[in-house]
């Protein structure tokens, strides 16, 4: 049976970060994942701490670290290092990020006409973030026939001051719709389909020309332009260049409902980085059980046709996601379980899981549920004793964060993935602790 120094379960931001970091420090890394989840659903940004009280992400980390039980209490310091380390990897995969921990948090408009607080965004979305000059206008440019983006509704909503918290916002918001070549009459059309077309240079040219003409003719033009997040998948950088060359207005993508093209770009870049570092990724692995010997995990066993597939593991990173990712399962009898290792889960009583109002301002108590760990990310029991020595927990599986409300999920994922790998590289007896590779 194959064996790996580090087996990572989960191929999201946390899992792949841990895997790349571990592989670069010399470990043989095997990533096993049931499928794609958060990466293909999320907006593709790096949300570190987008709370209203914070001026910058760094400020937000500090504030959240002060909340009882938040992972930033012990991970906060790792966010900067993890971010600096991962950026070049992502850039090598065609995804450049703009902004850092000291960039002021701003409101970026969204594809349902709302706003979200952000500071670090991929280059394709970043133009949303600079403050609006007096009189600066916004054009919402939709694509005819594309059902996941509705310019009129978006523009009408963004024209209201209250959506921008009464603060800095565009002077006007104008909807337009562009007919792009070859899309009319299609029975199937989603964001990915359009993105793939943008990868084709010939189509790209005629599409961008059509967009440029429509934007120039729009009454509210001259400021910035928002488009749905469909600007290429493999050749995103080339598409951005082409847009920059043809459309004078600063243009930015707005993320949509899944499948998220920006999220898929991020995944592709992470996967490429892992493979470059010599790691292995297997998608489609349903983990059946994890073998253990005392407080050490020894092997990960997944379902195969007519048998099981076993990978011997020197160490394990559990990055299976929270409730959305399937890493935490809610039983009908009110228990919240971590199904792979049976780790103790910190969660409120079932009757208290959800507030009555869907949009309860204080949030739903269940959001903070997850696995409690020590500062080294080892899962611990109620006494604080590590349940396993060679297991690290990373990502939204960690207890104490409200990643939706506080927009801290990506920061926690990066920092915990980074820390997990470093923690493991220092662990095994007989193996020289390899320093994490530094990049200029």
């Amino acid at each position, binding site marked *: 049976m194959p064996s790996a120094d580090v087996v990572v379960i989960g191929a999201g931001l946390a899992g792949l970060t841990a895997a790349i970091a571990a592989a670069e420090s010399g470990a043989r890394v095997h990533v096993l994942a049931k499928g794609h989840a*958060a990466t293909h*659903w*999320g*907006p593709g*940004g790096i*949300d570190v701490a987008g709370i209203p009280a914070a001026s910058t992400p760094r400020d937000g980390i500090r504030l959240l670290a002060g909340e009882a039980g938040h992972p930033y209490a012990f991970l906060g310091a790792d966010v900067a290092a993890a971010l600096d380390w991962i950026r070049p990897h992502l850039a090598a995969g065609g995804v450049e990020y703009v902004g850092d921990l000291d960039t002021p948090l701003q409101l*970026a408009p*969204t*594809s*349902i*006409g*709302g*706003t*979200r607080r952000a500071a670090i965004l991929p280059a394709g979305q970043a133009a949303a973030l600079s403050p609006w000059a007096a009189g600066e206008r916004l054009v919402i440019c939709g694509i005819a*026939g594309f*059902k*996941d*983006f*509705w310019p*009129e*509704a978006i*523009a*009408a*909503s963004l*024209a*209201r001051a209250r*959506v921008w*918290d009464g603060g800095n916002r565009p002077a006007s918001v104008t*909807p337009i719709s562009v007919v792009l070549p070859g899309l009319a009459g*299609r*029975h*199937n*059309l*989603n964001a990915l389909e359009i993105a793939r077309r943008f990868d084709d240079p010939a189509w790209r040219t005629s599409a961008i020309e059509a967009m440029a003409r429509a934007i120039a003719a729009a009454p509210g033009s001259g400021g910035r332009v928002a488009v749905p997040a469909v600007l290429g998948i493999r050749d995103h950088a080339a598409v951005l260049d082409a847009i920059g060359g043809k459309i004078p207005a600063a243009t930015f993508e707005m*993320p949509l*409902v899944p499948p*998220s093209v920006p999220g898929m770009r991020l995944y592709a870049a992470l996967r490429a980085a892992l493979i470059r570092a010599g790691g292995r990724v297997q998608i489609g692995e349903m983990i059946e059980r994890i073998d253990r010997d005392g407080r050490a995990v020894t092997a990960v066993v997944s379902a195969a046709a007519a048998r099981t597939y076993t990978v011997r593991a020197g160490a394990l990173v559990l990055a299976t996601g*929270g*409730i*959305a990712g*399937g890493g935490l*399962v*809610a*039983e*009908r009898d*009110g228990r919240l379980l971590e199904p792979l290792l049976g780790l103790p889960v910190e969660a409120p009583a*079932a*009757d208290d*899981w*959800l507030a*009555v*109002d*869907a*949009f*309860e*301002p204080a949030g739903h108590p269940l959001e903070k549920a997850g696995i409690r760990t020590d500062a080294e990310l080892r899962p611990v029991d109620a006494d604080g004793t590590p349940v396993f020595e060679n297991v690290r927990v990373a990502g939204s599986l960690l207890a104490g964060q409200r990643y*939706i*409300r506080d*927009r801290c*999920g990506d920061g926690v994922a990066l920092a915990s993935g980074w820390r997990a790998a470093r923690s493991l590289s220092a662990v095994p007896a007989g193996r020289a602790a390899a320093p994490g590779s530094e990049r200029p």
Partner: protein
Amino acid sequence: MGESHAYDVLVVGGGATGAGVLRDLARRGLRTLLVERGDWGTGTTGRYHGLLHSGGRYVAKDRLAAQECISENRILRRIAPASIEDTGGYFVATPADPDDYVTAFPAACLAADVDCEEIPVAEALRREPALNPAIRRAFKLPDGSVEPWQLIESNIADARALGSDAWSYQRLVEMEREGERIVAATLRDERSGSLTRITPRFVVSCAGAWAGQIAAMVNVSVTMHPGKGTMLIYNQRMTDTVINRCHKSSDGDIMVPVHTVAILGTTEQRVEDPDQYEITRDEVAALIREGENLFPDLGRMRLLRAYAGVRPLYQPPAEVTADALKDGRQISRAHTVLDHASRDGVENFVTIVGGKLTTFRRMAEDTVDLVCDKLGVTEPCTTADAILPNQVPGKTYWLGHRLAEHEAEGGGDNGLLCECEFVTRPMLDAFLDRHPGCSLDDVRRGTRLGMGPCQGGFCTFRAAGVVGERAGHAGAADVAELADRAILGFLRERFKGTRPIAAGRQLQEQWMISGVYGGGLGVESLIEHGTPDASGEVAGAQR
């Protein structure tokens, strides 16, 4: 609203009964106005089990009700086939069901004229393999499932074609009584707030569980015993046949396939106010346990949501027993027409209470017979003979039709706004054309948008976008508020149903959707705390 408000009859309450009364009155030549405070069928009709009764549930204890059911069952199949799915029904004896009831069952069916044929258990299991393999006996009865909103709209359409009217979002706020007559009624437009005064010759209350509130407007006392019934919606049809337990009615003893889902019901709990009730996790757990008598693997199957309807139970004061107050099941399901002339001294007022959706037409006929008698109208009732508009005789509902129709046009996801339930843009446009100013919840009832596994996650904003696009001509501010209310109200409404069943895959679905809306889409920024949205909910309010 018409210029002339001179109606012969004002009918209050736009559920199935009200719509049936409207149609019957119109057909007998009376110019009638039906009013409803919300969208059509948002009372008990819209929150019921979806069952077209064979009457089998009543043969033992309430033969009258059983006979009415089977008679109307046959009539509805004739006049409203498109609203009915001919699922057939089984009454099965599970190990938990006592022998004496089962033994007496076939004879009781015969006595009530309810078709009942015993079939071998093996055949029942072959056709419905999810059934409890330990069932002892199985009977085939003509149950079916029925889609109430289409039924209501057909009745209204028939009446409108004859010159009567039906207004939704018009709440009856006041009735003026002078001596022994109601002389006027005031309606408030729930969207604009404007008031309209109607002066009908007669008033019929079809307000069901709310009948007491309507009667109170003219100092008439009608005491309703609203009975809450909770139901669970399963994501898939683990049965294509209506399944009843062959026993004395109790909780969780019936599973009805309705369109793409299967609905397990129900419970019985007295509530004080038909607009205020709660569904608890314990209640849900108890229902599932009962349901496992019929389908042992029920615990593995995915629940989409829980909802409750309030039964319009009525028992005349002299007959109210302590037992009946505790156990609503003892109260007769047969309907009662209250003649307020003899009962309360108001000459031109009648209330219809009780009954069930299956017998709505008969309830209407009985009511309209009385009304016509008092108005001196001798036209006979024709509602049982005339097929409803836009129906093909004998062509009942087929589950596959939406998929088949879409596939016939080349299929594909692009044409679908709600992918789970195959709701297309033309369908949505047609509905919005017919229901200007409606909410997305109204759209849901009329098209099934948002009723699938994602519970509106992927279609809400699309529908809001269409609403926004259409309303774009009305001005920016309106569009935005409309879209907001649409998105927020709809999501809140869906959440209400998910909360009591939050577990497993549906909770994961909810969490994923919340992550998308709260994350990249920034839905929080749309909320204006302290103001109500389309569901009538104020953010943060308790319900």
